[in-house]
């Protein structure tokens, strides 16, 4: 367990900023306490100071996880967001996509969102912008990357992919072993 290096932090923040933009600073600079990111087993955990101190009592090799896992660094040192970060991303999301009830299941099974399943989308969403996917009942289902800009979404045919799947809450079931 160690703090992130500058490079790691940057990579991670860049990734997170894709979804929540400048709201990222609200994650880092929280008025309700000190929160920090810790790297453990290639995974990045978002931990409050309190829990951090508590976790310090556990030896590194015995520690499975602490705080909330935001994602992990791949071998190529890219950062990959995990679905567990959704709780922190959803409230700050700048660009959102709502999918129709019929497409919820498809998305929750790890599929991309087609235009036919697109219920709503934030305007001015640009292509490849990170978006948080909500159900029509405003329940965050996961996040993805906009495959088309909002303007383009209007033109494409209904079977075209609108949002690339990144993570969904179905992973809590599907990746139960690996999620921490």
């Amino acid at each position: 367990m160690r703090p992130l290096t500058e490079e790691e932090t940057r990579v991670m923040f860049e990734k997170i900023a894709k979804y929540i933009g400048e709201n990222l600073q609200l994650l880092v600079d929280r008025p309700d306490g000190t929160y920090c990111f810790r790297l453990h087993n290639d995974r990045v955990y978002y931990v409050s100071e309190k829990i951090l101190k508590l976790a310090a009592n556990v030896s590194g090799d015995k520690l499975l996880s602490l705080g909330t896992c935001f994602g992990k660094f791949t071998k190529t040192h890219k950062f990959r967001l995990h679905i567990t970060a959704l709780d922190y991303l959803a409230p700050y999301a700048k660009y959102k996509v709502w999918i129709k009830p019929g497409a919820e299941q498809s998305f929750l099974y790890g599929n991309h969102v087609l235009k036919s399943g697109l219920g709503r989308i934030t305007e001015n969403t640009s292509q490849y912008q990170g978006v948080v996917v909500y159900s029509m009942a405003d329940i965050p289902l996961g996040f993805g990357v906009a495959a088309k800009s909002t303007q383009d979404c209007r033109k494409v045919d209904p079977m075209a992919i609108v949002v690339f799947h990144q993570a969904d809450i179905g992973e809590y079931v599907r990746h139960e072993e690996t999620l921490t």
Partner: protein
Amino acid sequence: MSVLNKTKWKGGTLQIQLAKESFLHRLAQEREEAKAKREKSTTGNNNLLEKMEEVNFHMKAVPGTEVPGHKNWVVSKFGRVLPVLYLKNQHKRKIIEYDPSKYCHNAKKIGEDFPNTIPISSLTWEIEGGNDPMSKKWRGEFSDFCGPSKKMKKVLKDKVSTGSLAMNPRSSWVMETTSCTKKTCDSITPNKSPPELGSDTQKFNNVLFQTSGLEIARKKNSMSDDDIDSEDELKAMIAKEENLRRTTWSSINESEDDPFEVIRDNFKSVVHKLHLTGLDIKNNVSCHVSDNDIMGNDCEYDSGDIDEIIAMKKNVDKKTSCKNRENSELSGHFIKVQKRKNNVKSALTHGVKPLNCKSPSHSSSSEDAGSTSELAESEEDKEYNAIMKNCLCVNLTLADLEQLAGSDPKVQNEDTESDSLESTTHCKCDRVSKSPKTPDSFHRGQQCIHSEEIVASLLEGENTCGKQKPKENNLKPKFQAFKGIGSLYGKESMKKSLKGNVAPNNINEDQNSLKHEDPSSISMENGSPHANGSSNKLTPFQHAERANGPNHIQPQKRQSTFESPDRKVVSSSSSEKGSRNPISSLLPLKGKKSLSLSAKTHKIGFDKDSCHSTTKTKVSEEERSDSNSLASFNKSPKVSSRKDSQESKTDLPLSISHSSDVSAKDKHAEDNQKRLAALEARQKAKEVQKKLVHNALANLDGHPEDKPMHIIFDSDSESETEEIPTQEQSHPGEELVKESVGKASRKLFDSSDNEESASEDDSSRFKIKPQFEGRAGQKLVDLQSHFGTDERFRMDSRFLESDSEEEQEEVNEKKSVEEEELAEEEKKALNVVQSVLHINLRNSTSKGSVPAKKFKDIIHYDPTRHDHGTYERKKDDQPKEKMYYNIATDLKEIFQTAKDTSEKEEDTPWNEDCSGEKLEEIQNPATLKSEAEQPGRFTFSFFGSDTKDIKEETYRIETVKPGKITWQEDPHFQDSSSEEEDITEETDHRKPIPEEASVPEKETTRFFFFSKNDERLHGSDLFWRGVGGNISKNSWEARTNNLRMDCRKKHKDAKRKMKPK
């Protein structure tokens, strides 16, 4: 013989012998002998058995004991005496002895309960269910019966009264009830042997069935209040009638039997066949069919116009029965009625030919009426009279018929008239041939049977089962009676029809009249087939037969149709109008005879099958026939009739009769409502869930930044607004650029400071006892702990040593080391965030998220401030058209989101059409107002004479300035900003009035929404106050003072009041 034998006579020898017995004679003898033998043998056997049994009983019933005196007889199990058998073995040539007593254990005795046979009546079962309309329907109960029937009766009443006599409502009631009961009987127990079939067993069955049916009917009746009354009445009537019956019983029986036989003889060929077929059907198929078949047979043997014939017969029967009952008081009435009939005949003869058509049907109905009248008689004397009156009506119709017939070709006596009528009108060879043979006797016999039997059957069937046997014969006619009820209505209808024929214009007078007319029309139809269809005698037979089958199959349907008599009536009335004419038209048309005939047969079949008891049924049938004739001249009358009836049901929303249907509908509606309510509740629940989710999300992780954007922007704007005044003009752009990051950094410091302060606070919290702080304090703590909580040794601050400060600092440092580390980390993170966000910012700006940011920094123009002079425009140079255009477009791009428009923007469109139009859309009324306020200053006008002024104004837009400021230090936007700067410079030069220039600037950078101290509002204030601003102000102040004083006074008063208490 011997003498004469072998004598020669005429050249031949005679051989004389005893003649052989005739075959038939011998056969009869042999049969008799056989019978006698059988009897003997049976008796002998019985004797033997008796003996045996005696022996057995006296014996010990031990299996295996031989019966004394009988060889090879053994007592086997259960005390039975069985023979010992010697059987030859198939394969071996050995004789096996089979001693039943040794195999007795294989035998089983069938349960002793078996002999307890269940009475047939109890075999009928009821569907148990709630009071739902559906379940009632299943049970065959139809609530509609009573209401509509009443109406009908009333109508009848009216008619009767018009005719001459008034019916008793009671009688009508009774009729209804009886009809209902009969109906039920039919539905429940279709096995009603026809009256013609005189087999005792059949009768017995009939009796049983009837009784059971009556019981059931009673039950059903009990379901409806109206029925109950009628029931009671019925019972009472029956009881009264019984006495009369008994007195006249014997004579009637005698008369009955003979005429009955005669009738048979007359109709032998037809009737017998029919009977045979009916019997066969009964035996083979089932009890249900038998009734209908028989009924159908009756109709059939009458041939196509059975109705008429029967009606005639019955009428005659009625008359005869009346005569027979001369002993009873009623007969006189009847005769009178007949006389009246004749009178009526004369009166009614107006529409002879149409009447003819109707007459046959009328006759049938009259027949029915007669039977019904008979029923009524049985029920009550008074009612009987009334019914007799009804009969009179019927008679009248008959008389009319007769008259018609007579007028047509040949008329003699009334009795013969009926026959002749039939023959003449219907041209039925069979009928004619048969009827003339034995008209009077035949008719009378029928009468006797019908009237008396019916009454007796009614009485006995209802009263006692024990009396049924003697009156079995009487029970048969019940059906006829039922028919009669229906026919009664029919009669009335007939009357009406007659009237209607006489005066067709009056058809649509009243509903009642209409109702009456309906049946009449129906009867017309029926009659028409008869008249026209005389040639088609045999066809009706077939039709009738066919009809019988389907009728049975669909009794429920009929009932349902019966349920809504009102509807039917209405429908019939409605249809009647139309139908009448068509019917009349149809009459001449022989091609449609078959149709009408079929309809007729339907009628008959329905009547007889359904016991013909209910007027409702009749009406419905008539209706159907009407509908058939009217709606479809097709040859599938049944189907069409059903459809019609259904249609009529659906179409006619009469509430009373439809109660069941309506209730069902209501139920449906209720169900729907319930479903809707459930759905709503579900939706609500869902919404609640949603809200819960929302709240949960909002409270997620206890983030106070649920609305992060707002917080950010607000803080930024605030900070910048504060900063802007302090900072110099050249710097605001910087601030803007750095806003988020800088803010964050600032916050960083702030937060770190805060943290430190927080830590200090914490320490202070623990410093509650400052003497324990630091190392020195620790000593004290130790001491204190050593001393315990003893008050005497409490360690005060006095004991605190003075060297603690340095150490305290050290401790603090130690504590804060970790925090500092964290803080540093945070700083780093924030730096990274800054860097990332910088990138983001650039990206976002490029993406167009800029405008929102741009408007965060609104520069308040304060004219009192000197440094704001830069915002003011100076003298304007010569404007360039090009520039205008550029500015306009820039404005458009930049202020897309901002609805705020300056006057210049308005004007620019004026100058340049293409850009101007779009800008105009952006204008909001507030700006217009402000413009309007300051007309003097602005020289604004859409049609300004001075283009130059306008141009100047357009140049004052200066909206670019804030944008320029924001971009000033942003390298990416240097180019655009520089351009704008140029423009602004140019515009500055042009400006004649500095204020004007400043105003637009502010506005352009402003949000659409008004904020406190909004410039626009200031302008508008001026406008609003206008002349009386000061005055109003003064008055307001004075008023407020006064009010304040008043309030204080009141307060004081109240206080004073409170004090004394």
